[in-house]
Structure formats: C-alpha cells, structure tokens
C-alpha cells in the first residue's frame, strides 16, 4: 500500500490495487476502496429494484381482475417467486451493504474496511449470483416457482426432471448470496471493533454504526443455518437424499426451522440499519440531539438477541405444540419493547425540534409513520389465534411490505438523498426529490393498506386468481403498485442528472455533526488518511455547542479548501 502526503484535492488518490482506473471506470473494476464498493453495491441494487419492481407490476397486473387471465398460473408463480428473491437478495441486502461500505469507515474515521480485498470479493459475488439467479429464467421449465420460502416437498418437485433447473439455480444463488453476506459481515464487525478513530469509544459511535454492528452479528449467527438448510435442500433435489422428503422418512417442517431461524432475523438485518438511518437523520433535520442516545444504542442489541428466538411464529399452524406456540408468541411480542424504545426516542427527538422538511426528512417521517403501523400489525400477527386466521393471507403480505418497503425502502431512499452530496460531490434536485416522495408515499399506501382487509376477509397469499369479493381491494392495490413504478422516474432522473451536472456540494450541506461531514465531498480515497481526528464528544450534539473532535476548525477548513 502506498502512502502519500495528504492532499484532499486528489480524488485520483493512489489505489491499493495497482492499475485500478481512477475515473468512472473504477466503478466497473475490482476496486478495494470501500466508497467505490459502496457505490457499486448501491447502483447494482437500484438496478435490481427496477427488475424486481417490474416483476411486481406484472404480478399486480395479473391480480387486477379475479380470474387468472394475464399470464399462465405457472408463469405467475415463477414471477412472484423471483420478485421476492430479487428484492431481498439483489436489492435490500446489497443496498444496505452499500450503506455499510460508505458509512462505517467514514463515520468511525477508518481509512477503509479491515479486509479491503475480501470486501471487493464480497461485492463481486453479487453480480455473479445475479447472473445465476437471472439465468434461471432460461432454465428448462422456467425459474424457481415455489415461493421465496421454497418449502419442500413442493420445491423438490421437478416435473421435467432436468438436473439443471430453476430451483437448482435458485438454491445456488441463495447459497452464494449467503457466502457474500458472511464475507461482508466478518468485515463490518471487525472494522467496527478494531478501526475506530482515537477517542471513539462504543458510546461515542453514531447509531448507524451500532445498528450495522447489531445487524451483521445476526448475519454471523443466522446465515449458517439457512446455508445448511439450502445445501440439504439441494441434496434432496438433485442427489436423491431425504432430509425433507416425507416418503423417505424426512420431515418437511425441519426445513421450515432452518429457513426461518435465519429468515425471520433477516428482516432485522435489513431494518436495523434503517433504524440507524432514522437515528442519524432525525437529529440533523430537527436540529436536536438524539433523544436517549444510549437507550437507542443498547436497544439495537436487544433486537438482535430477541430476533434469534422468534422464528417459530412462522409455524403456528403447521402442527407446533401449544406450549411452543405460547413461548414464541411471547418472545415475538417482546421485540415490540426495544423497537418501541427507538420509536419513542425518535418522537422525543422531533419534539420541540426545528424541523426542516427536505426530501430525506420526508422519507424518514413517512418511514416512521408506516413503521408504527407495521409494528402494530406485527403484534397482531404474533398473537396465535389471530395469526391462525390471517397467517398466509394478504394480511401478512400487507404487514410484510409495510416493513420491507414502507419502512426499509423509505429509509433507504432517505439515506440515498441525505448522503448523496457527500459521496458524489453533487447536490440533488429538491423538487424532483419531493415529487418522488409524494408518489412513493401515496403509491405505497394505496398498494398495501387495502390488502390488510383482503387478508382479514380470508384472501390467501400467492394466488393467481381469487374470489370476486376481494376484487375492490386488489384493484386499489394494483393502482398503487403502478404508481410506485411511475415514482421511480423522478428518482432516476434526479440521480442521473444530479450526479452528471448537479451543483457542486459543500462538505457539509446539512450542517450535520459526524466524522463523515468533516471530510471533503466526495471524500478522498483513504478518508482522513494519516490525520485521523480524535473524538471527544458523543454524537448528535446539535444545539449543545461543543466540538465533536479535537481541533475541529482544522478539519472543517481543510474539507472546505479541498
């Protein structure tokens, strides 16, 4: 690794990999700079958001009328299976890893990740498994079509009897995704524990770093279970074993345990960093310290711990004995406590604030609004008798999307707008951002709110056709879905045109407090390089008037002169 004297104007800073390009081509290279990798992750996942969204719009197109008339039911099943898989494994996990890459080193004052090459390798697995997953569209018999849960014995049915089939490629892609995520998790946790700036004890870390740490800990504990389950499923599918095949003495419910042991906590892997984004942004745009910083930080690990002992709530009516249902009902409901702590802390942060409603703040407020709603339906779903009625209906689909899009998606957009000037060096257009927010909020509400009622009335999920009594809710939902499709237009326009020719961004356009805002926009290759500041205060000191780091004026001046 070469070191040079610090010159913040050098965006063409030396790269640890010799020969790596220093212009836009670096985003297409095996680059080990965490910020380049972060943008690689985010750009890749936004592309797959469009792919997943397109699949969703076909699904909603099918459901706009009761009969199965737009596509054949077998095609429909493949479409929604791939929609779920793409959105989770190619949009949400990668985009949050993108945020981790951009924010963890810059927020803790590290020059890069602990293992830069592992980091780049973890990213390049994403396009690799994307190709494998997308390739399943061309497999004989079409892509995987047993839902993103892939419950056996359905996922083991292979009507054409080809060795290479959609399900096979699906399992392969999921396993590769798991490997990539574990590589990332090792890197993020090591970086957070070992590479913090001088003076930054754990209780001086920004909440985003806390939540990323809590989330990546779940990855380390949970992912091996899913990967193990996937390997067994692959053996059952392709090599004639009977881990899950009832006719060979296997137990299909065993797979559900493997699957949900990871896949329920996975939602916290996604939502925790978004809680981190909320916790970063509310103080900036309310001009107030984060209310109860330490409580919020500790609550993250409360969620991590509880998330690992709730998975059986996905199996309340699969023959689980009552004592186990009661136990997992209680643990699931307990999650409401640490998440409630966070929600109340954000409300406390907003209270008596001086609110500035720019696009990131709008997405945060919208996300929080939706999350409160999702939390309440979540407690309902944890209640065994209610879950027995609404489980596997559209009520669950509605709740899930309120979490996964209306909260996590909103948080992701908030984060993109907020840190866009920092990492691209350009300002985005506020007007387009607000149009994007308005369309997204209305579209998302139209899309998922009515489906709660469809579910309460008993409309099962994953159906290509339905009884006419559910039609009205589905028509509204489909209109909402198409509106979300339209919402992507101002977003894409904004991102592309702002990055190409938006106004130059100052180092700290939001007057935010945090190490990343003491860097020039965009930050140079190794962030603070040798001049790492010494942290002396807790974060979020809005209105308190004390500096975050020693000799703060020096860093502010240097970032402005860059």
């Amino acid at each position: 690794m070469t070191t040079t004297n610090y010159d913040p104007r050098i965006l063409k800073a030396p790269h640890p990999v010799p020969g790596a390009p220093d212009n836009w081509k670096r985003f297409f290279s095996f680059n080990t700079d965490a910020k380049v990798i972060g943008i690689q992750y985010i750009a890749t996942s936004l592309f797959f958001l469009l792919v997943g969204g397109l699949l969703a719009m076909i699904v909603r197109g099918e459901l706009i009328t009761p009969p199965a008339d737009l596509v054949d039911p077998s095609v429909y099943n493949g479409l929604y299976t791939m929609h779920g898989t793409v959105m989770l494994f190619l949009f949400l996990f990668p985009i949050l890893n993108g945020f981790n890459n951009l924010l963890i080193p810059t927020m803790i004052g590290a020059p890069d990740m602990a293992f830069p090459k592992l980091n780049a390798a973890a990213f390049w697995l994403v396009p690799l498994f994307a190709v494998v997953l997308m390739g399943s569209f061309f497999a004989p018999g079409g892509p995987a079509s047993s839902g993103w849960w892939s419950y056996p014995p359905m996922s083991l049915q292979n009507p054409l009897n080809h060795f290479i089939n959609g399900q096979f490629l699906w399992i392969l892609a999921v396993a590769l995704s798991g490997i990539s995520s574990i590589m990332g998790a090792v890197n993020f946790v090591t970086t957070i524990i070992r590479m913090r700036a001088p003076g930054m004890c754990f209780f001086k870390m920004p909440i985003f770093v806390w939540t990323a740490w809590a989330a990546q800990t779940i990855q380390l504990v949970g992912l091996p279970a899913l990967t193990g389950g996937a390997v067994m499923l692959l053996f059952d599918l392709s090599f004639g074993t009977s881990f899950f095949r009832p006719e060979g003495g296997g137990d299909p419910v065993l797979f559900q345990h493997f699957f949900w042991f990871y896949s329920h906590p996975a939602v916290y892997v996604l939502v925790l960093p978004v809680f981190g984004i909320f916790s970063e942004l509310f103080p900036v745009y309310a001009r107030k310290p984060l209310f109860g910083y330490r409580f919020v930080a500790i609550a993250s690990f409360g969620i991590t711990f509880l998330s690992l002992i709730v998975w059986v709530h996905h199996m309340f009516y699969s023959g689980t004995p009552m004592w186990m249902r009661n136990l997992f009902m209680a643990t699931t409901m307990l999650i409401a406590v640490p998440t409630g702590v966070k929600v109340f802390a954000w409300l406390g942060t907003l209270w008596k604030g001086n609110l500035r409603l720019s696009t990131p703040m709008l997405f945060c407020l919208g996300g929080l609004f939706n999350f409160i709603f999702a939390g309440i339906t979540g407690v309902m779903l944890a209640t065994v008798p209610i879950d027995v009625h609404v489980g596997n209906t559209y009520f669950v689909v509605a709740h899930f999307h309120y979490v996964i899009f209306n909260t996590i998606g909103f948080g992701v957009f908030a984060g993109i707008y907020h840190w866009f000037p920092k990492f691209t060096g350009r300002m985005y257009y506020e007007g387009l951002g607000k149009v994007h927010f308005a369309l997204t909020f209305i579209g998302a509400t139209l899309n998922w709110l009515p489906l709660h009622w469809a579910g309460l009335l008993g409309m099962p999920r994953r159906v290509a056709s339905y009884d006419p009594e559910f039609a009205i809710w589905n028509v509204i939902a489909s209109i909402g879905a198409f509106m979300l499709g339209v919402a992507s237009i101002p977003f894409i326009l904004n991102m592309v045109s702002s990055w190409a020719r938006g106004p130059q961004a100052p180092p700290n356009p939001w007057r935010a407090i945090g190490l990343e805002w003491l860097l020039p926009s965009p930050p140079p290759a190794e962030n603070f390089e040798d001049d790492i500041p010494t942290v002396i205060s807790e974060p979020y000191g809005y209105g308190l008037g004390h500096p975050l780091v020693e000799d703060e004026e020096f860093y502010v001046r240097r970032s402005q002169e860059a």
Partner: protein
Amino acid sequence: MTSTAPKKGPNIGSIVVISIAIAINLAIAKLMATWSYSWFPPQASSAAAYVDDLFALETGIGSFIFFGCTGVMGWVLLFNRAGKYDESDGAPIEGNTRLEIIWTVIPLLLVFAIAFTSMKVNDSLNALGPKQKYAIGADTSALLSADPLAQVGPIQVIARQWSWEFRYPDGVRSSELHLPIDQRVNLQLQSEDVIHSFYVPAFRLKQDIVPGSLISYSLTPTREGRFRLRDAMFSGAYMSLNQSNVIVESEQAYSDWLKRSAKQALQPGLDPGRVLYDRRIARGDKGWATVPPAPAPMVNDPGDPSIPHDA
C-alpha cells in the same frame, strides 16, 4: 446529560391539552375496536368470537398507540417547523432517564398483558377443538380416539394437487364438506403430495396439512350457510383454484344428505384446476413447467360449485 427539568408548579394549560388529546384518542381507539368486527367474514364456528374479540382488543390498543404517536408527529409538523431562513437549533434535550424507563416498562407490561390474554384464549380454543399432529406410522387406533368428545366423524380430509376429498365414517365420499350445525366434528387431515392448508375464513381456523403426518382436528360450526374452504399454503400451479365449500346445515338436512349421497354412484368430483390445465395442454403445454394435476377424486357427491357461497 441535561434533562427536561419540570417547571415549578403544574402547567395547567398543557395538562388540559394532554387530557383532551388522550380522551379523543381513547374515543377513536374504542371506535376502531368496534369497527374492526366488520372487517371479518361472519362468525361461523365456536372459535370465531374469541379471535374477533382478541383482534378488537388489539385494534383498540394499537389504534391508541398509532394515533398517539402519529399525533405527536402531526403536532411537530404543524408547530415545530423551521422557517425558510431559520438556521437555529431546536431545544438541546439529550434525554430523560425517567421518561425512558417509563416508556420501556409500559410497553413491557402491555406486551405481557396481551400475551397472557392470548394464552388464555389459546386454552379456550384448545378446549373447543384440540388439534394434534401424529407422524404416520404411529398407532392409528390411538388416532381414532383422539377426540372422544367429537359428535361427528372422524371425517377423513384428503388434500391433493389440487383437489379436496372428504370421506365420511359410513363410506360416503364428497368434494364438498357437509357438517351439522352445533356439533363438534373431528377431521383427520392428510396430504398425498405437498403441504396444503385447511382454511375456512368464516371459522377463523387454519391448519397446515403436512405430508407424512396425520392431523386430528376438531371444530364446531355454529352458523348455517355455505362457507369457502381455501388451500392457504402455496401448493403449486393451481393452488389458487384449490377451493371448495363447507356446507353447515341442520342435523336433519345433514343426515338426509348422507343417506342421499350413499345411494349415488361414484363419479369424478370437483377438480377446479383441470380446466386451466386442459387449456394449457391444448395450447401446446406452453408456460413454465408444472406438475400435472392429480386425477379427480371419485366421490358420491361432487357438489355444485355454481351455487354462490355466503362467505
């Protein structure tokens, strides 16, 4: 750490405002809880009222929390917005340990209260109709006495890709499930291929049918009518069509139906996915691969899907 030090003496103005806000919120929560009963299909089993009451309770509590929190958000949006050129900071309040402990303990108690109530409901529901899963290969004679309180049955329920078949103790087979009102019935659920789920929304009951297991399942229908039975677990290409009806009728009508059906010869029963599959084959088997549907079950009474269902 600074804290919101309370002013000397009670602030009458804010106490009044907060009391009014809480009263309005309680009234809305009560309305929502009452309204929530109308979001369900009619109550047609002894279990339904328990589920709806529990849901109404949670809707009430949830509405109170939702409107409370979003009310705070609305308040700050109305009254705490910065002006266009206002660069000042908000009140630098970092936290308030007492408040934070309160809002940790109250949800904790609330959650325990809800969990405890739900556990009691679970016990009641279990007494109304126990549900027990047995691995196949266990002593089946034990299964037959699984629910000694059942007045009807056991009725065998066989789920396939993609049809339902019901076999009555006297040998009658049908594609629709006929049940006498107000009698506890014992069903024995089994699947011949993949996981299906026995779901009757009007009964508020659902049970996954896991292949390799036999599930003894008891329930008591309490309302006459024709209710939709749906396969709620994704079971392949034509899962969405795998629906049938549960006909709850008087004791007399039920025994008449049994006698009438026993005289009918076996014939192919309901097989709703078949039409779409045949159309697919006629078009040259286009589309992504699917498992061919199992042959239609041979039954005495194939039912009549053209009669509209009540719920």
